[in-house]
């Protein structure tokens, strides 16, 4: 009898444990789906729900706060989504909050994300309708990717053609790449540049040594000192020249604007005319003197004296 009771106790423990596990699992599952909490309902309208299903999560600030409780077609371009959200988060959801449909990862199920609104809009009420945002979905991205792939293929095809032409030596670039004479030219140029560099090195080494005039010029200070003396002399000479120039300026000013003889000689036409007249008069005087002298010479008085002397 005792054994029988013990068996019943064991059976009882087993049954109770199993039922407890089941009840806890149901409760945990229910709490995950917000079944055992106070909830409130808000609505939103979409043109398409992109595979959203009843029971999908509603996420606010990255936290699952509710579930999609119903999806109803209103008309051909409008679908109403009913969301059951935990009452505790109601105070954080504002009337101007926006709603969008997202995916949980690339292959994950759809979720509804509530984007927070502004404080001034006020807290959302039961049965309010939140504004929805149509987002870019994976299908759109794939479509864009397909278009981009098409472009890429065309670019790759063009590149392939270009490289083919270059390889076959077509066009300037092809010739540039494939022509060997250019390479020979480059080789020759390189050799010449090398030679030039060698010569330059020799020249520079000569410049560095003091065995020649240029080297001495570059490396010896005495030349520099001599040049410095020359420069000083030149400086002194230029100072003298400046003085001479100033004197000449003054003389020129005196000639140009003064009242001296030279000024009058150059600029005074009356004076010149006077001189000309004087010279004419002098010339006439000289002619008269010469005539007078000739007359004197030929006069008898002078000749008398000369004949007496000859007679003796």
């Amino acid at each position: 009898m005792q054994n029988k009771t013990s068996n019943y106790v064991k059976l009882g423990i087993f049954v109770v444990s199993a039922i407890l596990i089941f009840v806890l699992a149901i409760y945990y599952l229910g709490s995950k789906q917000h079944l055992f909490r106070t909830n409130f309902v808000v609505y939103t309208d979409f043109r398409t729900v992109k595979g959203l299903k009843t029971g999908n999560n509603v996420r606010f600030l990255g936290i699952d706060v509710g579930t999609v409780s119903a999806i109803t077609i209103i008309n051909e371009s409008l679908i109403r989504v009913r969301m059951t959200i935990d009452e505790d988060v109601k105070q954080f959801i504002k009337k101007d909050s926006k709603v969008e449909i997202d995916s949980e990862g690339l292959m994950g199920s759809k979720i509804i994300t509530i984007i927070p609104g502004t404080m001034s809009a006020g807290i959302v009420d039961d049965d309010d309708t939140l504004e929805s945002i149509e987002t870019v979905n994976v299908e759109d991205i794939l479509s864009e990717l397909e278009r981009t792939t098409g472009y890429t293929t065309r670019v790759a095809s063009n590149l392939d053609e270009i490289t083919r032409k270059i390889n076959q030596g077509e066009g300037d670039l092809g010739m540039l790449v494939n022509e060997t004479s250019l390479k020979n030219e480059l080789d020759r140029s390189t050799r010449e540049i090398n030679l030039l560099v060698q010569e330059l090195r020799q020249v520079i080494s000569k410049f560095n040594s003091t065995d020649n005039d240029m080297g001495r010029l570059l490396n010896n200070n005495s030349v520099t000192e001599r040049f410095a003396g020359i420069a000083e002399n030149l400086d002194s000479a230029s100072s003298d020249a400046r003085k001479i120039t100033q004197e000449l300026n003054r003389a020129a000013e005196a000639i140009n604007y003064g009242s001296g003889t030279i000024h009058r000689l150059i600029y005074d036409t009356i004076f010149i005319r006077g001189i000309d007249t004087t010279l004419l008069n002098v010339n006439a005087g000289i002619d008269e003197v010469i005539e007078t002298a000739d007359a004197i010479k030929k006069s008898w008085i002078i000749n008398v004296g000369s004949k007496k002397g000859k007679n003796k």
Partner: protein
Amino acid sequence: MNGTSHKGFLPYQPVREIFKEIGAIASFSTTVTRQLFKRPLELPELLRQSYYLGYKALPLVLITGFILGMVLTIQMRPLLVDFGAESELPGLVTISIVREIGPVIIALICAGKIASGIGAELGSMRVTEQIDAMEVSGTNPLKFLVATRVLSTTFMVPLLVIVADFISLIGSYTAMNIHSNISLSLYLSLSFDDLTFLDVIPATVKTVVFGFIIGIVGSYKGYHAEMGTESVGIAANSAVVTASLSIFVIDLLAVQITDLISIL
């Protein structure tokens, strides 16, 4: 009614036998179900059968469940790691176990242990004419022997499945911690993230049907065992085969019904 008329409808003998067996089991089920609602309740016998059929199967179910969870996790993990979806592993394992693998595997184990046990026990009682003696003594063997066993399997198999599912999750959690470090609370959170009532309720209802079928098939095979010692073995063996096959067929139907519900 001669043989020719049967041949006209179902000419192939084994096929005819299968349908005959299905019809007989259905008829037996109806009779037993009717007995379930008749007094007396036979509570002591019910508890005794529940202890032997349910509690005694617990160690086997616990070990199987634990290993099931571990193996499933270890096998799935590399594939999910390749996709960078290791965090999906608890949810995936939980859904697999709760929806399908847990109920079916545990039901098959129960079919092996319980149905064969009932078949052998009732078969030996039939062979040793104990059932006939009960009928003679005025005790209803269908009520006392069959109804109590069917009722206890109907209750015990779902409970065994629930415990096995739980132990499988513990096994899965242990396997997860071999390669990575995850807390139990996070594991449970991830496990129940993708689980819905549509996963749990149909699976639980399914196990009730499994339990009923295991009890009915085991009892039918034992109750209708033919005379002779070897028929006990045949009854036990036939009970396991028929119960296992029935489990798969019912599972297929259950999946279809669940799909229909989820679409609606």
